[in-house]
């Protein structure tokens, strides 16, 4: 049970985040939901690298002959990279949300609909004249 729990939590966080983006009524909320979905990857990566009864992979604290098991440091490095990537993405998307609010005066995806028609898609295209 306890072995599966972290994976179930990761899957749940991912799905909750995606659900949030799909049903979002505000683009800032959608961007935050996206970073919630991303948090699932942190949990998953750390769960993948966990070794029972491992300790932190800080080798200066462990005597070299002590054969103490450590958790996998690779996934921790990946998680750190992932956090940096996530911060960049969130910051940029929020900046774009500011642009949208400034130019359109709303952040509600429902009001922002109809990208196609506003972009010069013609309802009355064919028969021309």
């Amino acid at each position, binding site marked *: 049970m306890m072995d599966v729990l972290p994976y179930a939590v990761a899957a749940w966080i991912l799905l909750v985040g*995606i659900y949030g*983006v799909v049903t979002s009524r505000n683009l800032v909320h959608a961007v935050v939901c996206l970073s919630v979905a991303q948090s699932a*990857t942190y949990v998953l990566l750390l769960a993948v690298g966990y070794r029972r009864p491992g300790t932190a992979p800080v080798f200066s604290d462990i005597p070299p002959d002590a054969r103490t098991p450590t958790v996998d440091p690779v996934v921790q490095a990946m998680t750190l990279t992932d956090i940096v990537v996530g911060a*960049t993405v969130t910051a940029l998307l929020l900046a774009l949300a500011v642009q949208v609010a400034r130019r359109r005066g709303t952040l509600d995806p429902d009001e922002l*609909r109809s990208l196609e028609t506003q972009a010069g898609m013609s309802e009355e295209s064919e028969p021309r004249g």
Partner: protein
Amino acid sequence: MIVQAALAVPVLAAAVLAAGGRWAPRPVVDALAALAVAATAVLLGWTLAEARHGTVVEWLGGWRPRGGVSNGIPLVADPFGTGLALLVAVLALAALVFSWRYFTEVHAAFHALILLFVAGMCGFALTGDLFDQFVFFELMSVIAYVLTGYLPEEPKTVHGALGFGVVNSLGAYLTLTGIAILYSQTGELGLAAIGGGLDGAPGAVRLAGFVLVVTGFLVKAAAVPFHFWLADAHAVAPTPVCVLFSGVMVELGVYAVARLYWATFAGADAAPGTSRSLAVLGVATALLGAVLCVAQRHVKRLLAYSTISHVGLLLVGVALLDGESLGGAAFFLLGHAGVKAALFLGAGALLNHFQSVDEDELHGRGGTLRVTTWTFLAGGLVLSGLPPSGLWAGKSAMETAAGHQGWWWVMPLGLVTSALTGGAVLRVWLHVFRGAGRPARHAHAKEGKETSVTLSAIPWTMVSPGMLLTAAALALGAVPGLGRALASGAAAFTDGSGYAAAVLHGVRTDVPAAEGPHLLEVKHLAVGGLTVAAAFAVAAVGVWGHLLPRPLHRVQGWTRTALAPVRAAHSGHLGDYVAWLVAGVALLAAFQLPWK
């Protein structure tokens, strides 16, 4: 060191420009950026020459593998990966030269972003490590979001940039989830190393890993149903940026799927449903893109949908899972990159001159732009597969390969998509540049604007890149030896064990000599002629459709009614796009399940 230098040069130049560019005069900034990209291109060309004598592998920080076990991160330059990176540099150079005069208001930040974008895309093409591929994927995506929202060409639809960002990032996170799953079973992150560890992995893990990793790449490739972001992003993004988006960034997604399959999964036969799933997605993408392309009046969106359609054909070329067809797909990709880049630059010239890219508004006004007129005519012909263009050559090679496997439907699919996408561009040429057909109802309302537009000539820096790229795309099929070189590159690319030997054991073998496609056959030339004729027919119906007999008008009405729900699905609503993405993941997983 060459491969590392090729990635370092644009990053360093970008850092210099970002730090000191604001004090430098604009010509210096332009020259430095163009020089850096040209230097990258030279380094990549050198790497390509080296790669013909065996894959060039460089281990970052000197962490070489011992006895086939690696702890390091490799850069792997095989002919295809390097060639694609070289294409990135060439298109970036064209985009930079075009923006010298196109963007008079931008400062060094734009150039720095383009340089970082080049580095991100080249790194994505050249890395041999799955996690690094994710990082480069995010690097190029993040820069793509900035470039899309930077000086948006359509302020009203700027939320298209946000949709682009959310959908692509979500795809990237699913890729990372897949990477974590593969790592949990194999303990490896290198493409070749994961492949070695997959043999013992449970089927469910392979399936979940493959589907999730591929999802992110297919989002980048804009395969149906992950394609929604593409047209919105292209409508907003500045034209020189669209050149890079359509010409090569989207295609990198297809490349990554193919790379993952052959370098990692093919050896252990760990993804048996790949051919099936890519073929179905490819056909859907090709047809949907082509139909929506013809239905467009907004020239940049029209070109964006045509890109989606061509990506569909590329996916079909990969789905055949053999070297012959992959060589054809590479031919197709090169031809498409040249012509699509030229057409976007042409659209940029229209926008710069008339402040509009609406086919109805521009009716009959484009004739003054002589070179752009020719670009659109030649572009339409090349897109419809006029021999000896690269698109024709690639399509012919893919059709031959498909014939060997009994996929008879590839030929008609290629014919329909080429005729529709080429016909749409030819229709724009007839409407905008020749003034053919009747002007649209609301066109006269816009005429007041015309006097306020400065009618100065378009400078040569905005004209020559498009001319050169069109000429290259048109002549590609006639370049001696190119077909053979691409076939050899494809043979090396599809050799998964050769890739693993090169990466993990440092074995360098010459790229195998493969036979190029036999293009000069009556069948291929006839199909080429037929598609061009069909494209002209499509264009003619678009322009002179009102002259058709009355019963046929009703057919047009029915088509529009049938298309209405499809168009409504492309709503720009972020939630809808993400819901489609989730449905696409489920679809991909269903295809990977073992069923007959």
